[in-house]
């Protein structure tokens, strides 16, 4: 169908022009002299420029077209201009040359889309290309081939997220194609009317001329009429085919709605242009004088019907068309926005979201996709604030082997049912989690921070195939941690350590010396690692495979090292040793858990661990690159831990240093998506709320440093007690800030967006407090505080009077929030504190996980029925809970937090259960806990 020879003539010129002027001018500049000037050197389309010049540094999306007039050409890029030093035209030629239309059918037919991946390993350019065709009445064969390509220097993105990209592309193209089909149909219908009109006119003319004119003239007329007839039949056939394919009523409604909205909102002439960002660009590209043809003509004369996707054909005034058997190819063809109308707007919006999502670093995408597995199943996930999933109790858990109660005789072969569900997880991971609370070392939560700064729950609920997957992936010459950021991260950490060590004196001289060697070792290691990355090739795969053995070796050494250290410690570690000895080396799955175990125990040992870590690093250094990809996370974490430990123990106060550290640690574009929690494109609409809504948790550092007793308020939120922040009208801003900052602790943020009110004029009713957990209330100046807050509210809610700086709430006595409170002054940057908070939440959630699986859904959670009194049952349950909590190392107020978190999930599960049951029309009410057993106090802050 396509004339492939065609572009051979035109393209070199175009390319040349593009290369010369692309930086100056976005559009085409038809300088005739330049255009016509012959060039001695004609660039070959298949020959790339020297590698340095066409280096692709960022991802971009290219929409290309095989133009009848110009050959393959770029239509638009996202972002505008594409990659700065990348030859887009060249690339357009490549992708458009992959002609996907293999059909040999005669006549008009609908063309299927095709998706291909395209790689240029030499230049490390990889593309996902979606070919599709749009229909245009004026185009050759009614068809105009287009292709959307996602171009990236990172091939892993395409491999790992092939499905996602493919799906999203299909969605984009669905909009475009459907919009186009509607436009095409309208255009055909109008053309058909024109043809009929012309035919009628012609017949009339023939009849009137019949008597007077000559026979030859009649022949011409007859010929014309035949052509006309043929045209009509052809158009009718095409129209029929198109009409048959217009079945997506949902999209049609959507476009209709958009059009309605546009009519109401913009009484401007160009009803279309407001929505199309590329409009200006495209208009600049095409010379306006070229615009011709019946479609455009009608649109210019009649704005309301011309641009509409749903015209009323009754009001169309047909006109005579020029009869010609052949086609004209010199007329200007319509732009993409004209071809697709509303489909273009929607499609481009989706495409931009797609770009925003996938342009981020591979590591971020991977972490996010890992994290996303914890969102499923939805009701068992525990959220904190906007973007933190504390834990998902049922991810990867086989429901059949949960709890003893499920013991059904009819489930054959599931003998392990007899144990409680904790056995269905890795017990070691749970054990390591047990341990992390037993110590008083403040570092324990650090382990939960992933390399990207977002907390990841990684304690053993990974699917078994997860780890091998990543391993395989890494074998394929795809090194996850080869990113510049990561290297920078590591090296900076080392620098940090250097600085710290040079500064601090309290350590013994021997230790210090040893530390130095460690640091040097690590430094070397990292350097070699970095170098290795640069030079890495497929050869490394073999090494990696060897590394398999080496990993287990290294683990052995780690565990023995740990064992020794524990023996050195006096007592109370016997069970720890048991766990380390139990480690099953052959199991790849335990690898991740071991990492955690390793870091956790390392933290337990505290300062002593430092030496051991040093030995460990030496080990790592001696093994060299072989197991590095597998072990990098451990390394990163241990280094991180060290630096944290350093800084905390020494109380480093240099603000600049920390800021520098953070800036280096978290690159700006790397960090912002995490903060804004850019979700998948489909969710993006929901995530862009009104602009005055600040990010969840914004200002938490300020609030926590300003108000001394804020931890008690946080405690209230974490036990499900509603918090009412009361302020006089002049304190509106402050109250809003407090509410916004404390939102990060809300567990019901995602489920129910009414869980907080930043500022309200009157106190909400008590029954609303089952949903409302955080309210900022305006207290009139003249009304005294005690009169304003009724005793029922005071009893059931925590009240924070900002004016008098008083808090009336239950007192927190526990570990986690005190830890947070103590740490706050060490942080100068909010991102770090937010991360710390999230990691603490994850740590607490992990306890809730254990509590749920080994207590709640076991026999202990149901209780004995042999007590007659409510009080007896209640107190016996309380005893059981506190015994269990003591066993997992949770005490005092923390137990209440964990109980509440668990109850939240249970309620979510029950609610979901009732929602999915169609027979039940009503839902159980959500409870409000009164916390009678907690003593409330008035505190100054």
């Amino acid at each position, binding site marked *: 169908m396509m004339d492939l020879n065609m572009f051979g003539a035109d393209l070199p010129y175009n390319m040349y022009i593009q290369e010369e002027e692309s930086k100056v001018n976005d559009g085409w500049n038809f300088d005739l002299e330049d255009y016509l000037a012959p060039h001695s050197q004609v660039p070959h389309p298949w020959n790339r420029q020297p590698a340095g010049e066409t280096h692709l540094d960022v991802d971009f999306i290219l929409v290309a077209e095989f133009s009848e007039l110009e050959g393959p050409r770029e239509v638009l890029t996202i972002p505008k201009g594409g990659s700065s030093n990348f030859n887009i035209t060249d690339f357009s030629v490549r992708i458009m040359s992959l002609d996907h239309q293999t059909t040999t059918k005669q006549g008009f037919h609908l063309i299927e889309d095709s998706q291909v991946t395209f790689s240029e390993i030499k230049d490390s350019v990889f593309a996902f290309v979606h070919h599709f065709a749009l229909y245009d009445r004026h185009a050759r064969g009614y068809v105009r081939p287009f292709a959307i390509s996602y171009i990236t220097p990172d091939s892993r993105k395409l491999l790992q997220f092939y499905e996602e990209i493919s799906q999203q592309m299909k969605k984009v193209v669905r909009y475009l194609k459907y919009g186009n089909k509607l436009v095409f149909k309208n255009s055909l219908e109008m053309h058909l009317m024109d043809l009929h009109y012309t035919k009628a006119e012609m017949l009339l003319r023939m009849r009137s001329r019949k008597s007077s004119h000559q026979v030859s003239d009649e022949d011409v007329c007859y010929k014309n009429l035949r052509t006309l007839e043929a045209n009509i039949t052809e158009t009718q056939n095409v129209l029929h085919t198109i009409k048959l394919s217009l079945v997506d009523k949902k999209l049609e409604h959507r476009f209709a709605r958009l059009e309605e909205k546009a009519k109401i909102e913009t009484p401007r002439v160009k009803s279309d242009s407001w929505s199309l960002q590329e409009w200006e660009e495209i208009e600049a590209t095409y010379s306006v004088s070229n615009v011709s043809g019946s479609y455009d003509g009608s649109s210019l004369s009649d704005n309301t019907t011309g641009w509409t996707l749903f015209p009323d054909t009754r009001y169309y005034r047909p006109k005579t068309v020029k009869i010609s058997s052949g086609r004209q190819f010199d007329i200007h063809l319509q732009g993409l926005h004209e071809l697709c109308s509303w489909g273009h707007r929607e499609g481009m919006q989706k495409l931009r979201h797609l770009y925003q999502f996938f342009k981020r670093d591979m590591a971020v995408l991977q972490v996010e996709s890992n994290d996303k597995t914890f969102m499923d199943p939805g009701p068992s996930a525990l959220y904190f604030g906007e973007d933190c999933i504390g834990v998902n109790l049922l991810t990867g858990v086989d429901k059949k082997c949960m709890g003893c109660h499920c013991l059904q005789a009819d489930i054959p072969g599931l003998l392990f049912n007899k144990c409680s569900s904790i056995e269905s997880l890795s017990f070691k991971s749970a054990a390591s989690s047990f341990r992390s609370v037993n110590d008083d070392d403040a570092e324990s939560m650090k382990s939960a921070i992933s390399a990207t700064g977002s907390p990841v729950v990684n304690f053993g609920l990974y699917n078994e195939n997860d780890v091998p997957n990543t391993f395989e992936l890494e074998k394929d010459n795809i090194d996850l941690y080869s990113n510049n950021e990561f290297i920078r991260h590591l090296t900076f950490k080392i620098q940090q350590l250097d600085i710290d060590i040079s500064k601090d004196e309290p350590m013994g001289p021997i230790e210090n010396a040893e530390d130095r060697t460690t640091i040097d070792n690590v430094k070397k290691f990292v350097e070699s690692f970095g170098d290795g990355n640069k030079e890495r090739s497929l050869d490394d795969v073999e090494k990696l495979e060897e590394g398999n053995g080496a990993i287990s070796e290294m683990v052995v050494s780690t565990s023995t090292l740990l064992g020794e250290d524990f023996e050195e410690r006096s007592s109370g570690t016997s069970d720890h040793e048991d766990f380390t000895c139990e480690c099953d080396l052959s199991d790849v799955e335990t690898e991740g858990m071991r990492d955690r175990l390793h870091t956790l125990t390392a933290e337990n040992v505290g300062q002593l661990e430092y030496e051991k870590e040093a030995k460990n690093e030496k080990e790592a250094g001696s093994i060299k690159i072989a197991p590095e990809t597998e072990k990098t996370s451990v390394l990163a974490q241990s280094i991180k831990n060290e630096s944290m430990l350093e800084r905390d123990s020494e109380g480093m106060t240099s603000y600049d240093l920390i800021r520098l550290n953070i800036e280096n640690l978290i690159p700006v574009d790397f960090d912002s998506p995490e903060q804004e929690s850019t979700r998948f494109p489909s969710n993006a609409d929901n995530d862009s709320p009104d602009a005055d809504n600040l990010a969840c948790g914004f200002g938490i550092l300020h609030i926590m440093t300003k108000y001394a007793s804020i931890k008690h308020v946080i405690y209230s939120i974490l036990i499900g007690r509603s918090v009412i922040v009361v302020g006089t009208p002049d304190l509106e801003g402050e109250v809003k800030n407090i509410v916004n900052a404390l939102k990060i602790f809300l567990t019901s943020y995602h489920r129910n967006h009414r869980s907080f009110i930043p500022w309200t004029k009157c106190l909400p009713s008590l*029954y609303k407090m089952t949903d409302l957990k955080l309210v900022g209330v305006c207290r009139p100046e003249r009304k005294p505080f005690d009169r304003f807050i009724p005793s029922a509210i005071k009893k059931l809610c925590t009240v924070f009077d900002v004016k008098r700086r008083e808090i009336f709430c239950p007192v927190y006595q526990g570990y986690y929030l005190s830890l947070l409170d103590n740490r706050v002054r060490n942080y100068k940057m909010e991102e770090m504190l937010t991360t710390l908070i999230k990691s603490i939440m994850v740590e607490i959630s992990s306890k809730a996980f254990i509590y749920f699986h080994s207590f709640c859904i076991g026999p202990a959670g149901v209780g004995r029925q042999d007590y007659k009194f*409510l009080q007896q*049952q209640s107190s016996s349950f309380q005893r059981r809970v506190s015994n269990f909590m003591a066993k997992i190392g949770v005490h005092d107020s923390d137990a209440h937090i964990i109980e509440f978190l668990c109850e939240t999930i249970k309620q979510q*599960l029950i609610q979901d259960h009732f929602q999915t049951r169609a027979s039940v029309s009503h839902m159980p*009410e959500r409870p409000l806990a009164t916390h009678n057993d907690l003593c409330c106090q008035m505190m100054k802050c």
Partner: protein
Amino acid sequence: MWQKLWRKGDQQKDEDKEVVEEIEGEETCNPYTELYFLQHHSDIVRHLLVIDDRRCVSAGDDGVVVVWDTQLCMKLSFFEAHSRPITCMLSIDGKNKDSNLLITGSSDKHIKVWNIDQGKCVQDITEHGTSVKCLLPVLENMFVSAGEQLHLWGEDGALLDTFPLDKQEADISLLISTNLKNERFVTACDKELTVYSIKDLLDLNETSYRICQDKRLPEHLEAVRALVPVSDKLFASGSLDGTILLWSSETFTPLKKLNTMADYKGKANMYPYSVQYIACENQKYLLAAIGCGFALFDTVSNTLLCRKVKAHYSKVTQLTFVCDGLLLATCSEDGSIRLWGQKSHNPGEQLAVKASMGLSPIERFLDINFGQLHHSKSPDHFPEPVLLGECLGHCGSVMRIVDQGLEGMFSCGGDHLVIAWKNSELQKMKRNQVIQEKVLNPSVIV
């Protein structure tokens, strides 16, 4: 609303010397640690009726009857029954004993019979003619409705008899039956009590029933506000002036006058000692809500066992034993429900002892068994009950409370809410059970 009450309470507090007890700090004895707001009504909820151990029914001034699941705390069904406030409710067994029937009377002059299980109206009786004030089951499967008229209805809603009330302003507000066979009943109309009986007249083929007036009893000083059967031989009535009269059910003569007050009208005709509610325990003990306090009487020895004069800031509307008598719950117009009991030094141990002894609620509440009770003559023996807990949740007066045993307590009030007061530990266990049985084991469809 709440603040008005609060201020009113404050004023009363200033006027009286006795101070209303307040509870501070943690309430270790208060078992109601979780509350559920059951919302549906759009006006004051005045009636709460327990159907069975899973269900209760609430009705209010909005003319709506809502059936609640007391275990899961959810709405099961609702009937938009009447166009005017519902004034009385009655739960009876259906013909086949397998269905629960609910009879509602309203000031819209309708009496409607509902099948709770099927959730539909079985009968709509319009012949009552005037606003219905009270309903009473009599004999077998018959019931009496009263207001400005007195009617006897058959099981199928057929009007069996109408009693012509002589007085023009007669408006019967209370009805009780006084013997086991339910053939004789007492009505209270303002200050006056009247005894009626139902006679069956055997005609040739069919039996017809008639209401006959037996006796008019001596009047109270003020309007009768409470009427309660005590035993087969005894019933009690309480009035606005604070007097509680004990009547013989056989001779219909007053046997005893309890709680007589000299200046019963109080300041500004507030009737501070008015009897709002009387409940009977063990067929001989009377629990009476008197003014802002409550009192416990023994009808055998005619003694006051214990009393609390100032229990609430405002008038006590109802009182009942909860937690098998370990606590006495009182609700009041001040919006609070308060829990009273004996102060003990070791609640856990005492609880175990009490549980083992198989005591009745009254014994548990007074912390003494009946043997000891009979021997002790001095009323000083029993200390004033101590405030052990306060349930705050309503923001209007609390109209009714009902005890549901292990499922906790239910209350309704002027804030259009029904609140379920439950124990959070028990609820946690229940949730665990639900998760285990239903959520994680979906093959079992419940």
